[in-house]
């Protein structure tokens, strides 16, 4: 774990500070690498015992679409990883309602259970964060 966390000893360096982190995903998977590399940061963040939320808005909602099959494009299908997040105690996944509906999707189309928030609710959630990292 020390290698993946950059050699940081969590007990010493995080010194009990718990911040609210939001990872905001607004980009579709595969077309660019942002979605995949965002997920890699999220997994590492689990080691720091922070208050982590994942936000999916705009094309970021497509990251959670069921049925991704990447064999023919020759890329790694990373959508199963979203289902593994629970095992890392990352359980706060939020989808913006407007973005989901504008793409003809419902929660049944998504690989993981999420909480659907209106734009206004999302605005409040984002406003409450200490650190917002967007990819």
């Amino acid at each position, binding site marked *: 774990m020390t*290698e*993946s*966390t*950059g*050699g*940081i000893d969590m007990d010493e*360096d*995080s010194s009990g*500070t718990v*911040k609210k*982190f939001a990872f905001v995903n607004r980009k579709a998977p595969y077309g660019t*690498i*942002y979605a995949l*590399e965002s997920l*890699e*940061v999220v997994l*590492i*963040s689990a*080691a*720091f015992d*922070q208050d982590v939320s994942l936000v999916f808005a705009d094309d970021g909602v497509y990251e959670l679409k069921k049925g991704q099959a990447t064999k023919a494009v020759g890329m790694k299908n990373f959508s199963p990883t979203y289902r593994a997040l629970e095992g890392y105690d990352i359980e706060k996944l939020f989808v913006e309602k407007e973005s989901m509906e504008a793409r003809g999707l419902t929660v049944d189309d998504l690989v993981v259970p999420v909480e659907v928030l209106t734009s206004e609710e999302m605005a409040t959630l984002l406003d409450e964060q*200490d*650190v*917002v*990292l*967007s*990819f």
Partner: protein
Amino acid sequence: MKFGILVNEGPYNHQAADTAYQFAKAALEKGHEIHRVFFYHDGVNNATKLTEPPQDDRHIVNRWSKMAEEHGVDLVVCVAAGLRRGIVDDNLAPGFRISGLGQLVETGIQADRTVTFGD
């Protein structure tokens, strides 16, 4: 105030690396501290010493190195993103170091504000 900076795009291709630099420079001049600049995604390409822009263009890589030298700014390149793109210790410019993604999360915890520059 203590700032963390995240750079997600390579130099020259996108203005993000320039804006991040101008922001960091202004922050230092105003007496703030830069806790760390973390280079992720194609941002890792800011760290290669093989960069040779035309003489009449700014040298983005050297600019970072100089900032590290003059102000002790910690320039960290993500190891996983770097390996994907061929950025390793052998071609690292002065002032940069390679480390894990945990350094980004740690900056988020330690810095008063973390500002992202990207596409």
